[in-house]
C-alpha cells in the first residue's frame, strides 16, 4: 500500500518531496486537498477536514496509517 500511495501522490504533486518527514510543512492547502481527493478516490473512503492534522500528514508512513485506520473502520 505504501508504494501505491507514494506513486499516486508523487504523480499528483510532483513538486512535493514525499520522502520528507516534515511533509505537512512542505504542503499548501492545494496540496492537502489534492491528497485528500486522490486517497479518498483510490480507497473509496471519506476524508474530511478532521483528518487534516499535522500528525496524519507528517510523512508518507503516517498517511498510510491514516488510510489503514479508515479501511479497518469500514470493515
Amino acid at each position, binding site marked *: 500500500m505504501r508504494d501505491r500511495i507514494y506513486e499516486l501522490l508523487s504523480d499528483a504533486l*510532483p513538486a512535493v518531496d514525499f520522502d520528507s518527514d516534515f511533509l505537512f510543512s512542505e504542503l499548501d492547502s492545494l496540496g492537502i486537498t489534492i491528497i485528500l481527493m486522490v486517497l479518498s478516490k483510490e480507497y473509496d473512503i471519506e476524508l474530511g*477536514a478532521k483528518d487534516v*492534522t499535522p500528525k496524519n500528514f507528517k510523512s508518507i508512513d503516517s498517511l498510510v496509517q491514516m488510510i489503514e485506520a479508515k479501511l479497518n473502520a469500514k470493515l
Partner: protein
Amino acid sequence: MILTLEQSIKHFASATPDKIAVVCGSDSITYAQLWDSIVQRSAELVEQGIKPSRPYVYRATQNIDFVVTYCAVHNIGAIAVPLEAQAPEESLQTIRAEVDGCSFASDIVDILYTTGTTGKSKGVMLSERALVACTENFIVDLGFDSDLMFIVSGPLNHIASLFKILPTLSCGGTLCILNGLKDINAFFEVFELPYKKFATFLVPASISLIMQLSYDKLCSLADKIDFIETGAAPITRHDMERLSKALPHSRLYNTFGGTEIGAVCTYNFNDGRYMEGCIGCPMKNSNVEVTAEGNIVVSGLTIMNGYVADEESTNRVLRSGKIYGSDLGYIDEEGMIHLKGRQGDVINVGGFKIDPSEVESAASSCEMVSDSVCVAAEHPIIGTVLKLLVVLTQGAEFDKRALAQHIKSKVEPYKVPTYYEVVDSIKRTYNGKIDRKFYKK
C-alpha cells in the same frame, strides 16, 4: 480623520493598552506591547543603517514579528519591501539590487512586488496617502470595528492579506495570523476565541475548499461570522449561493482591487441575486470608469505612484492619474460594475497573477525540456491551475518529478505547474512567438 497604521497603534497603546492586537498560534501581543516592540525594532533598524526613504527588503514571515517590522520600517520613514516568505535567494538579491539602485519620493512607504496587471514581476510603489485611503475604504465599506477579530491566512506580502492589517489595527480590533489554510482545523479553532465577531479574507479557491471539507462546521459559525471578503479571482455563482446559505446573516463581499489600484469596489453578494462577476460600486476613495473598448480604469486616492525603475511600464498603465489595467467590464443601470475577463496572457491561480513565460523560462533550463508552454487548466475544486505542455529534448526521458523540482528551485512555489503533459510540438505564430490564443481555446 483616518490616522496612519503606526499612529493608530500608538493611539490604542495608550487608549486600550491591554487589548490583544495580534494573535498568531499560541503567541499574542497587546497594543502596548506591540507599540513598544515597534519602537525597539525602529531603533534596531536605524542602528543597521536603514535610512528614511530607503527600501528595506525582507521576507514576509507569517507571524507577529512581521507586523512589528512592517510598522517599524514605516515608523523610521523607510520603505517596506516585503517579499514572499519562500522567495528564492536569487529573487531576493535581484530585487534588493533593483531597489538599492533607485531613489524614491519621500511619500513612498511600501513597495510590493507583483505580477499584477502587466505580467512581469514589478515593484509597485505605494504612498502613505494610498495606504490611508485603502484603510478608510475598508473601514467604511466593509465595516471594520474594534470588536472584530480579523483572520488573515494568505501570504503577508500580498496586498489582499497585508492591507487587512491596516483597517483591523486602525480600528483597535484584533488581527489573527494563520499560516495558510492547510491546517483547516486551526482555522476553525480561531472561532473558539472569546471575540464578539469574526471576519476573514479568503480567495475563492479557499472558500470552495472549506465548503467541500467542512460545510457543516461553517454553517455552525453563522452567528459568529460578521463578514467574509473574497476577491483576487472570480467566485462562481454556485459558491456564492452555497456560502450565502451557510451564512445567511453575514455580509459576503466580492472585492475588486489590486496592488496597483488598492481596494476599489465591493459587492455584498448575500443579496439573493448572487451576481457572478459583479464587484459592486466604487468604495469611498475610489473611482471607476469603463472605456469604449471595455477596459476598467481606476482613479482615486488608493492608486500607486508607479513601478520601480520602469518608466515605460508606468507610463503605459498610469496616465493622468488613472490606472489602465487589463480587466474588462461594464457598468450596469444600477451603477454596479461587472467584470468580463482579462486581457493579456497572465494566468490567475488562486489570486496569484502568473506570467506563463516565467514558468516556461524556468522549465527551459531543465535538460529534458526542448520547448514548453504554460497554460491554464481547470481543477475540480481549486479552479484554475497551471499546466505545462512539454516537448522533450531528443532522447530524453520524461521525469515529471524532476521537472517539477527543477522549476520549484527557480520560482516561487505557487508558480510550479500542477499538471504536465508531453506533446510533440508547441504551436507558434509566424514570427516564432508562442501562439497563446490557440492555447486559450
